[in-house]
């Protein structure tokens, strides 16, 4: 195929197909001082795409606090890095792979995991854990079951093979995600504090290498077509295919190369492949890069410069080495059987210049490509969710309880996480099923705590408060297990930014998140924005997902979500302000058929005190277990504690509270703890010093769950029935399929 000429691109408006608007094309022409050729127009198209440039969100992202004494690397690099003491640091980031996963769920999810993995080891960090935040439609829907099954298999397929444990995350189900599932993958890595490397191309004359897999024709324009009108038709060929075996070898080779000290800068070729990695590395260094595309190892003959620059073939990295130390790289990559090719060099003229067959095929200012990419202050209009204001209590308590327990968002997720290797690397102290995961740091008595969270219903009802809750809940989960929260990463999954009310959701949610980050002392050190999450014009509920990181010194202080065994009298206490509002709850969604009311209560000052208290409680080893009150309310939190410890409970509704509301409220800032009677007084005293309300609500006992209202029995549910409902809910959707598969 003959490539269109520069004039044709202008006259036939071919640039539109490359992702540029008319106005953007004009800007490109001005910046170049001439018409861009096909390669150049394609490169501008991907780098100025929403995915690479954050043009709609950039202005708002500036609201996030990004600094703190613990922050070693904030946003703008391949991953954020925080100090965890003892000369050690943690690199982490979360990234979305929503659009590819909607089309090709196995590969979409697998390459999401592979991509975030490379972002982490690129910093010189040894990856130690994955977490995945997933959102799907309703499991009654056949296509949703297919997407769910394949996404889980894809995550396992990549993560298990590279030998990094998947230790946590969450899965939620809501009709809002039917045509647009969310797949957000987070990776956490460990490094020595003074051995961090970055994606910077410095040192004029230093050689530039492409290492790892060969470049093929897969995934061309994956970054641009995220907003196609009918993504299902258009994106199929833009989905990349992952090779975890190659990913594992590449990780080992790169970590060895970085350890050799020969690396000046290194970057993953993720979205927009060779284009974004070279332009971004040059931009960070304020310099330029020159590449000879004849030297790029390709998978097939006849590839054009356009295809090479825009390919999103997986498992490739761009590396700048110190001149004269090339032999180190050759030795390492040869040993692992990987490609290594010197494709160019670092320059100081601030240009990205590409040669092919002796000719200059592209020559553009790096600043125009990256730093001067357009930033849009898109119009913002009011957002008023079309929902009922009040939640009627029309469901009987026992009925609501069982329905909530069977809701796939609440029900047992063993079906998911037993498909993930959760214990490889032999360092998982707390894995899936606890409020936060804890992964031990080798050689010291220290663990990294990690959790993800994000409830779209709250953000939909009230973006600002919902944003606050997303951060508060993720960070609270760290404190619940006894860790000290340090920082967060996030994935902002929103609808179409060209709609003013969606921009309101985005802007307000970011504001709320920023407020919570300030209040809780957890700055944002990395993140990702995924816009255009819509199906046939209908946007998903706004879903900011937060990944929080903390540290625990002395793993003997860890607090599990339920006591392993109950050998002495154990009381249940609720820490935090009690509440009986059904606003914004999952109960409300069941009764009203959709979100209802406002987002639940949250108070950031109280939240911060609660987190302090929880760390003290853990440090003093006062409690046998602690579990956050979240979706489904106290009823569900209590049930989960009882199921995990194999014992019933007897509890009393708070004085003067409405029983429905008290059981099912999702007000934030509440944690249930199991404490032996011997320690209960000490717990109450400690809570008082932090000015956190604490009440004994009952005890762990018997084989049923009993709720009393002013001493009278309100509801009693047998534990074995609760177990059957909780554990059976998700597998029940797959029973028929399994039978057909095995016979």
């Amino acid at each position, binding site marked *: 195929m003959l490539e269109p000429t520069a004039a044709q691109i202008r006259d036939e408006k071919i640039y539109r197909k490359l992702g540029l608007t008319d106005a953007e094309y004009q800007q490109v022409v001005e910046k170049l001082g001439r018409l861009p050729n096909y390669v150049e127009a394609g490169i501008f198209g991907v780098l100025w795409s929403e995915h690479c440039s954050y043009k709609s969100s950039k202005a708002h992202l500036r609201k996030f606090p990004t600094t703190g004494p613990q922050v070693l690397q904030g946003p703008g690099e391949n991953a954020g890095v925080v100090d965890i003491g003892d000369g050690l640091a943690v690199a982490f980031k979360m990234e979305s792979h929503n659009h590819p996963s909607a089309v090709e769920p196995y590969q979409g999810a697998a390459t999401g995991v592979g991509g975030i993995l490379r972002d982490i080891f690129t910093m010189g960090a040894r990856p130690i854990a994955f977490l995945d935040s997933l959102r799907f439609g309703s499991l009654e829907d056949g296509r949703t079951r297919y997407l769910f099954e394949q996404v889980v*298999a894809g995550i*396992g*397929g990549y993560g*298990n*093979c*590279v*030998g990094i444990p998947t230790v946590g995350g969450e899965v939620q189900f809501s009709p809002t995600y039917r045509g647009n599932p969310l797949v957000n993958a987070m990776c956490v890595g460990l490094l020595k504090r003074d051995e961090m490397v970055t994606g910077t191309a410095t040192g004029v004359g230093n050689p530039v290498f492409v290492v790892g897999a060969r470049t093929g024709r897969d995934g061309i324009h994956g970054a641009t077509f995220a907003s196609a009108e009918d993504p299902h038709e258009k994106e199929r060929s833009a989905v990349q295919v992952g*090779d*975890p*075996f*190659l990913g*594992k*070898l590449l990780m080992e080779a790169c970590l060895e190369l970085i350890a050799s000290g020969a690396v000046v800068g290194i970057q993953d070729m993720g979205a927009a492949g060779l284009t974004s990695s070279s332009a971004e590395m040059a931009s960070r260094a304020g310099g330029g890069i020159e590449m000879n595309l004849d030297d790029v190892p390709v998978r097939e003959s006849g590839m054009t410069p356009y295809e090479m620059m825009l390919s999103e073939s997986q498992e490739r990295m761009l590396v700048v080495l110190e001149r004269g130390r090339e032999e180190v790289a050759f030795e390492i990559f040869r*040993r*692992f*059987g990987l490609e290594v090719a010197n494709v160019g060099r670092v320059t100081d003229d601030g240009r990205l210049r590409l040669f092919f067959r002796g000719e200059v095929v592209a020559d553009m200012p790096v600043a125009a490509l990256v730093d001067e990419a357009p930033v849009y202050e898109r119009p913002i209009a009011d957002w008023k969710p079309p929902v009922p204001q009040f939640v009627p209590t029309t469901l009987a308590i026992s009925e609501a309880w069982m329905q909530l327990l069977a809701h796939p968002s609440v029900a047992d997720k063993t079906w998911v*996480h*037993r*498909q*993930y*290797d*959760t*214990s*490889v*690397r*032999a360092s*998982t*102290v707390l894995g899936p099923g606890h409020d936060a995961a804890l992964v*031990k740091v*080798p050689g010291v008595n220290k663990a990294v705590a990690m959790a993800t969270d994000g409830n779209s219903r709250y953000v939909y009802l009230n973006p600002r408060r919902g944003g606050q809750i997303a951060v508060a809940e993720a960070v609270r989960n760290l404190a619940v297990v006894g860790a000290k929260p340090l920082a967060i990463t996030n994935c902002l999954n929103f609808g179409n930014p060209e709609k003013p009310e969606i921009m309101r959701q985005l802007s307000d949610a970011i504001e709320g998140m920023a407020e919570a980050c300030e209040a809780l002392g957890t700055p944002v050190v990395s993140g990702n924005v995924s816009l255009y999450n819509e199906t046939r014009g209908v946007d998903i509920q706004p879903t900011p997902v937060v990944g929080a990181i903390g540290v625990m010194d002395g*793993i003997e202080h*860890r607090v599990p979500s339920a006591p392993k065994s109950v050998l002495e009298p154990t009381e249940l206490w609720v820490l935090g302000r009690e509440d009986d509002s059904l606003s914004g709850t999952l109960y409300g969604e069941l009764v009203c058929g959709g979100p209802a009311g406002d987002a639940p209560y949250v108070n950031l000052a109280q939240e911060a005190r609660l987190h302090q208290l929880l760390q003290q409680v853990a440090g003093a080893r006062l409690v046998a277990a602690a579990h956050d009150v979240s979706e489904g309310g106290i009823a569900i939190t209590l049930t989960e504690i009882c199921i995990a410890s194999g014992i019933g409970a007897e509890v009393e509704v708070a004085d003067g509270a409405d029983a429905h509301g008290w059981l099912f409220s999702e007000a934030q800032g509440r944690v249930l703890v199991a404490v032996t009677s011997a320690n209960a007084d000490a717990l109450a005293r400690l809570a008082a010093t932090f000015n956190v309300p604490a009440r004994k609500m009952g005890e762990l006992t018997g084989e049923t769950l009993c709720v009393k209202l002013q001493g009278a029995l309100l509801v009693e549910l047998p534990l074995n029935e609760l177990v059957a409902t909780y554990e059976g809910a998700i597998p029940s959707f797959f029973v028929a399929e*399994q039978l057909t*598969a*095995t016979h």
Partner: protein
Amino acid sequence: MKWAVIVFPGSNCDEDAAFAIREVTGDEAHLIWHDARDLSDFDAIVLPGGFSYGDYLRSGAIARFSPVVEAVKREAQKGKLVLGICNGFQVLTESHLLPGALLRNDNLQFRCEMTELVVENNQSPFTADYAIGERIRIPIAHGEGRFVADDTTLAKLQADRRVAFTYHANPNGSVQNIAGILNLQGNVLGLMPHPERAVMEWMDSVDGRRMFLSMHRYMKEARALVGANGSANS
């Protein structure tokens, strides 16, 4: 004692195995790249878990052609201990150091969970520290762990008491609930569960420790015996 932990391209439990060996026995554990051709320096060999060569073609099917496998066979013939865990077990069956084969789990899914194993034989160098019939808790993490063998092989395995462990609740459809088997001489053990992930209090089980301890003690006694007889190490 000196242990070799073999690293194939794609192995990912090599560090875990080395950690367990050092932590539990205090012995030296060396990571040995798959192109090694001589293992005569080592007292024991561990083929760790992972996805050697990406499990492409069939788990363990490509790794068996690695140069190191010939060396493993030579040392096994000399009577040295060889422990194959998970992917290591698959490599051992593919290399015919152990009979049978490991196929895709009957549930067609990867399974990672704590399992209860029943100790069927405590007369081997790997299991001497366990009691016969004892139930131990060791986690599994595999997609292709369904042990199969023909009836003659199974009968022979049973007759020779070469089934080392069975699952209390079968997680993958293995024939006769088999989780781990020994070779005829008793110096090669392959098992799907991961004993190296059950060696510390915080790992939720410490039942894997005794496997490494049994091996350590056996090697020490064997060495003492050789010393007492005055014969040089071959």
